[in-house]
């Protein structure tokens, strides 16, 4: 059901953990839908993401997208990190099953939430960053049966 890359990032997730006194943290999702992601960012004076850690409660795809997203933003400037979209994360993982696409949205949103927290703490604005929604969920329309 999952690609090799998804399985690799699920079974050997990168950047799991916490950062104490992080420059920005963001938690998105809810337990009702079965996914919660938390991202910690350590950002230096030049607005470069020095370190990033995550914790995720969720399915294989949720863990894999968190892991991939953290890898993709590490070492980038906050502005560059804005280019790490859910689509980019999905592509880097060689795709996700349709029912798991929302996991990649959650990963993008978690990064944005952490960046928002950082921006608020430091009184700066990051171009293109909107106040994150804490809750991302997709509801399938039930087909008539």
């Amino acid at each position: 059901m999952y690609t090799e890359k998804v399985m690799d990032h699920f079974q050997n997730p990168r950047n799991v953990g916490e950062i104490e006194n992080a420059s920005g943290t963001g938690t998105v999702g809810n337990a009702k839908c079965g996914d919660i992601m938390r991202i910690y960012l350590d950002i230096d004076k030049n607005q470069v993401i020095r370190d990033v850690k995550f914790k995720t409660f969720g399915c294989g795809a949720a863990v894999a997208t968190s892991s991939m997203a953290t890898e993709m933003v590490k070492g980038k400037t906050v502005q560059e990190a804005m280019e790490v979209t859910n689509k980019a994360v999905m592509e880097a993982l060689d795709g996700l099953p349709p029912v798991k696409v929302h996991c990649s949205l959650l990963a993008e949103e978690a990064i944005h939430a952490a960046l928002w927290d950082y921006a608020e703490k430091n009184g700066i604005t990051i171009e293109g960053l909107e106040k994150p929604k804490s809750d991302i969920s997709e509801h399938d329309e039930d087909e008539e049966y």
Partner: protein
Amino acid sequence: MVERKYIIPIAMLGIYYIIENVDEAFNFNTTERRITYMKQTIYLDNAATTRTRPEVVEVMIPYFTENYGNPSSVYEFSAPCKQAIAHTRETIAKSLGAKTNEIYFTAGGTESDNWAIKATAEAYASKGKHIITSKIEHHAVLHTCEYLEKRGFEVTYLDVDEYGTVKLDELKKAIRPDTILISIMFANNEIGTVEPIKEIGKIAGAHGILFHTDAVQAYGHIPINVDEYGIDMLSSSSHKLNGPKGVGFLYIRTGLKTRSFVHGGAQERKRRGGTENVPGIAGYGKAVEIAMASMEERAKKETELRDYLIERVISEVPYTRLNGHRTNRLSNNANFAFQFIEGESLLIMLDSNGICGSSGSACTSGSLDPSHVLLAIGLPHEIAHGSLRLTLSEENTKEEIDFVVEKIKEIVARLRSMSPLYEDFMKQTR
């Protein structure tokens, strides 16, 4: 010069010698290493399906090879096929205390449930349009009821208690003058709870309401007598009792108004058209025969293993609960909820260790909602998401259970270490 005919045996001895020594050299004395080395599968999903018994397969083969005739044909060549069907029908009827003409073969449990509910609704619509069922039924029942709701029927979905037992006083209260059918499962497929079928049968009978039970998980595992239990219709599926897939039956009590479910043939007393699945039905008969004869012994063995598994998991994995009743449950069913983790992750990691289990959460089947059964017994969403169902068979060993428990401990700890819910919980308790 070695004679040709000796070459293969000698080569085989050589391979045997190598295997023996590899085994010794690496000292595969722990269960874990041996199982990993053998790439063995530990199958703990017998509620999903079971292994077809070799004896069953053996009985089926002639109906693919020599006896391939259509049972409806008049010639002598088809006689063994007719006999095979009659024989299975007798075996099943006898096992339930029913008559042979009350057993109708179907393609499985889902079809049987659909038939029982839709045909009853249609046949008794003039009497009333109200049906009572429970919130923890299989989707074969729930979705069929929802289908009927869209077509003018009213359905009451009964609540269950914390163990998943249907509340009898609620059932009594739900009965109306226009209630035509009560459909309650014999035992729940997820949490294994055995329902008070005898009492429900009595209540239905006293009110002159038909009683259907989905016995897919119970038939062949628990003794059932349709008269004693007051059952009017009963669904069963062959592959849940070591028979082949694609065959089931619906028991329909004599005297019930029954509509044809599949039109187009005189098979099954014109109620279910279509050429019979002769090999499947033949195998089903053998599976029932063995299941009935071995029931007591199997249940005893499975119960022992189940209790061992439950004891170990509950006492060795913190923040874990058993879903369903501790004792009033199917002999092979264990269902756990591990707090702070999500079921699918656990399943994939168990799978990479050769362990087949299933999640109460329907995540893997394409729905993101947690199990309706776990929500019905009152679990909050986040706990319902972290559930694991393990269903044993008599073929499982204590060694396997030990290996599984060790893996569960390892995996649950690992998933918790990366769970934000666990992080928050630990900070709060600190």
